[in-house]
């Protein structure tokens, strides 16, 4: 155990030495996945890593980071998430198209998305469009089923059925450098032009600055093809058209300050995003283009502070203010004219405390063996949301949310366990036009538990057996409750209960061709009740009403395997395979044809394969994504059948020093990359009537100094 810690510390310093250019780390004799796993264990908290005996997480994580993340041909976070098991992406196509993520078929509203440690909310509709988060400055994307393997966190971290953490790059200065600059230009099909700049400055030893900006434009046009055959095999019709109104123009700017102090650190970030895009819409008979447009402006300032007050007591403070504006315009004269403008604001405050009851040692102190490590944590969050809009009869809702979480984590020889209890209190305030006084709606307080257990039966092997249970809910969103004419004020929360059992095995080999191999498999059962669904109403006009109506049972299996080969001549080859089986059955109404049917757009089988070849500065990456047959409705009848789809993507990238002289870390470096996506030009749809692009490509040039 002592040895492993030592290795980890060495690895950490090695990572720091090898610097910000992750490709270099691979060029040296460090295995990609090993470095990854170290980074994962330590989460790169160079300053306040607690030296605990058990670094393996209680809660399994799927993570993409560093060079592997960069090597995948991904424009947005949603693209990267296709490589995770248990995840289904709803992709409406194109550069600016909406992309939402559904983890283990519980619905996209059950995924909490955290950006640099603080949740990105959308009180209006609960869905975060992951298509708009650029990969350019992203360092790590990690997905937890249930919650993060950490109890020292804000109460909101306990509050979702699945949690996605997006972590942007933190400044690291190597070889005595005091600044880093990276300039990137991407250009490709769909008229994509995507320049970006990243600047990092060491202000003092304990204060680092990071600033980045990015612009992206794409006209978004691409050819798509629909084709049908007669039963005889002859072509009935074969139509190729150009996808229109998929243009996107977006700006992003971020400034971060990273401060370090004895036994503590802080981070403040400002974020600004502005976009205008066309909404390409459904392709239906006689309608081949659409005119709807959307403008988004998201701005937030957030910060957090972690500090060890005395030995064994830490606290974490977080705060955020965000202001988001969305405008939707439907200027199509053949449809109802809509010009909706919504502004959301959020104020968020959180405080978390952790007391280490047993087995705590700071990294700087001498390691002492302890048979039991036991922590308890208490966190409390307060959040205030408002939504203003220009709809008729709009109620301008305000929401106060108080979350309190108590959690404990216990490591006892080879057993690790984590338990948490979250209490949620929500009070909404409405300003109904007809009433003088605002009305107050108190939601029933909710208490939701989670338990995670992991057991390592063989002390010498990285083999774990684990299980978890989590009961959680999502609050009805402002749209669900109060959207004029559609919302239903009497909605109750939608609940999910998850049961999961899994195995994980990893092995590192000091010698031989195989450097690392690992596999994990999880079986799970999820129960979604009180599911909020739209039910039609009214007199033949398209009027809907949100109701707590649905019930879904999900039985699934996620499996992952990875291997890294150390080949002669400094060649490393790694491959990762993921597979998901899901039976997500609609059990809403036993009298309907939908009863027992697989819910809309969830394939029974899906998976991905990625392979990555490294040779010095050269990286070749191949990936294959497969989504099996599905139905676009839980009425699983032939007219609702959706074909499987699968794409092959490939990228080649080469990084080299621009000058021979000087110390290696100060030499300007350049990276050149080419990506080809959907190489075999498959014409497919993820969502009915939303054709996806065929073969497309991108070129990337990056200069770093």
């Amino acid at each position: 155990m002592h040895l492993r810690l030592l290795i980890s510390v060495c690895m950490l310093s090695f990572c720091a030495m090898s610097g910000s250019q992750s490709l270099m780390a691979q060029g040296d004799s460090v295995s990609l996945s090993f470095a990854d796993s170290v980074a994962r264990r330590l989460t790169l908290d160079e300053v306040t890593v607690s030296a605990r005996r058990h670094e393996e997480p209680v809660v399994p994580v799927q993570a993409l980071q560093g060079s592997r993340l960069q090597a995948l041909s991904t424009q947005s976070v949603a693209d990267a998430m296709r490589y995770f098991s248990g995840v289904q992406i709803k992709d409406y196509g194109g550069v600016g198209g909406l992309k939402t993520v559904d983890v283990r078929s519980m619905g996209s509203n059950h995924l909490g998305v955290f950006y640099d440690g603080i949740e990105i909310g959308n009180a209006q509709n609960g869905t975060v469009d992951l298509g708009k988060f650029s990969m350019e400055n992203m360092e790590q994307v990690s997905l937890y089923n249930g919650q993060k393997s950490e109890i020292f966190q804000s109460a909101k971290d306990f509050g979702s059925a699945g949690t996605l953490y997006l972590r942007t790059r933190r400044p690291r200065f190597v070889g005595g450098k005091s600044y880093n600059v990276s300039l990137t230009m991407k250009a490709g099909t769909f008229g994509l032009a995507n320049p970006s700049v990243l600047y990092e400055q060491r202000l003092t030893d304990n204060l680092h600055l990071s600033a980045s900006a990015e612009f992206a434009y794409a006209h978004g046009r691409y050819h798509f093809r629909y084709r049908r055959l007669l039963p005889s095999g002859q072509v009935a019709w074969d139509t190729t058209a150009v996808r229109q109104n998929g243009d996107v123009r977006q700006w992003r700017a971020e400034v971060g300050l990273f401060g370090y102090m004895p036994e503590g650190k802080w981070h403040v970030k400002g974020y600004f995003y502005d976009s205008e895009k066309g909404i390409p819409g459904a392709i239906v008979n006689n309608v081949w283009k659409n005119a709807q447009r959307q403008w988004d402006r998201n701005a937030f300032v957030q910060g957090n502070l972690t500090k060890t007050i005395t030995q064994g007591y830490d606290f974490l403070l977080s705060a955020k203010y965000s202001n988001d504006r969305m405008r939707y315009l439907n200027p199509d004269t053949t449809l109802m004219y809509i010009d909706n403008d919504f502004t959301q604001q959020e104020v968020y405050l959180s405080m978390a405390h952790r007391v280490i009851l047993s087995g705590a040692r700071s990294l700087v102190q001498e390691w002492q063996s302890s048979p039991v490590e036991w922590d308890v944590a208490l966190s409390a969050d307060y959040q205030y949301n408002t939504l203003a809009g220009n709809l008729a009869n709009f109620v301008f809702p305000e929401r106060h949310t108080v979350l309190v979480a108590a959690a404990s984590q216990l490591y006892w020889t080879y057993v690790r366990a984590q338990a948490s209890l979250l209490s949620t209190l929500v009070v909404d305030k409405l300003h109904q036009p007809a009433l003088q006084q605002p009305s107050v709606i108190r939601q029933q307080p909710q208490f939701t538990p989670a338990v995670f257990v992991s057991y390592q039966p063989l002390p010498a092997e990285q083999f774990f057996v684990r299980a978890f249970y989590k009961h959680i809910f999502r609050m009805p969103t402002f749209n669900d409750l109060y959207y004029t004419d559609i919302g239903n004020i009497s909605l109750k929360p939608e609940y999910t209960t998850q049961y999961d059992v899994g195995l994980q095995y990893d092995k590192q080999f000091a010698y031989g061709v195989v450097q690392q191999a690992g596999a994990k498999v999880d079986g799970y059962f999820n129960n979604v009740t009180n599911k909020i669904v739209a039910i039609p109403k009214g007199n033949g006009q398209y009027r809907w009403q949100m109701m707590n109506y649905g019930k879904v049972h999900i039985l699934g299996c996620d499996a992952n395997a990875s291997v890294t080969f150390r080949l002669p001549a400094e060649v490393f080859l790694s491959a990762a395979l993921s597979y998901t089986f899901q039976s997500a059955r609609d059990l809403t109404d036993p009298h309907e044809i939908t009863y027992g049917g697989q819910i809309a757009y969830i394939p029974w089988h899906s998976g991905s394969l990625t392979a990555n070849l490294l040779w010095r500065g050269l990286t070749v990456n191949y990936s294959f994504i497969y989504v099996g047959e599905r139905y676009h409705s839980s009425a699983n009848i032939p007219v609702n059948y959706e074909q499987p789809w699968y794409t092959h993507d490939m990228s080649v990238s080469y990084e080299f020093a621009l000058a021979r002289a000087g110390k290696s870390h100060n030499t300007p470096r350049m990276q050149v990359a080419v990506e080809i996506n959907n190489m075999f030009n498959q014409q497919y749809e993820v969502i009915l009537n939303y054709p996806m692009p065929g073969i497309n490509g991108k070129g990337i040039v990056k200069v770093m100094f």
Partner: protein
Amino acid sequence: MSKRRLSHICFSASWLLLLLTVAGCRHEVVIYNSETEQQGTAQYDAVAGFYLLCEGNMGSNKATLDYYDFLNATYHRNIYSEINPYVAKELGDVGNDLRIYGSRMYAVINCSNKIEVLDARTCIRIGQIDVPNCRYLCFSGGYGYVTSYAGPVSLNDHYEQIGYVARFDTATLQIIDRCLVGFQPDGIAVAEGKLYVANSGGYMVPNYENTLSVIDLATFTEQYRIPVAINLNRVCADSHGQLWVSSRGDYYGHPSRLYCVDTATDVVIDSVETSVSDFWLDGDSLYLYSEPWSYLGETFAASYCIVDVRTHRVVKSNFITDGTDRIIKKPYGVSVHPLTKQIYVTDAKDYVTPGTLYCFSRQGTLLWSVRTGDIPAHVAFLWR
């Protein structure tokens, strides 16, 4: 393990893998074939059958056409693409009305901005008439009339888009004239040489329209408007010089209601204390169903009644007598066989799954029911 057995296992495994690969691959899509079911008992009279237009949810491009054949007592589901396999993207997005006039059938496909023109007997496509945001149809003297929401836009602060009625020649399928009416015109009917158009104002919430536009057929110009009630929906003319008009209400304080207009004087002469979603006139019986939604009570309560157009009274408070009404989730259309008086009620369920067509005897007992396309709504009877 013997070597032979091992090779056998390997062979089986690779065979299984191959099978899985083939099953998991994409294949060419063949156009939909119709499905046929035996339903009811054969009957022979002057009515050969009826078509049912299923709307399909917006954006799904799933407007479909079903046909019931009385002689063979067979229900044919989704017949359009089999008969017209060469039409790209099939029938279209959101069916809104279906009428047979002469030897041709006209299907209003709202979000495909067209009227699909088919041969009424064979369902073979003859052509289409492009009308943006088209709603409802009627015919008179060789011309078709269709309401549309998509008239000229007035570029003021309120962005108002007036509706119109388009007149088309049923021989050439060309639009030959337009007549502006109120905002978001829906139902349309001909009586006394005049066209009556129900202006809804459905896009203008809460400033609904409340008038019927009266258009002189000879000059095709709007003569005047008759104030009736807010958010008008359907109109039909009876054989007693009366026009029956339904108002949707505003889903809050103004309930839905049925009104009667005298077509000689163009004055509202009566109203009937019933809410109405849609109706079907057969002889002197106006079959109507309603499912009034109120935000105040947050309730649905479907009712199925018959109004006698001579007495203006509800003569039967529930034309479904065997309790089947309790299992109908979302009534979406009613029609009556002109000879046997069998009653057809459609159920649109949750709009995104297949609906059901219920056939009742004239006494109101269930004879048969069948699965339809998504959102079954509009029926047109085909005479021999």
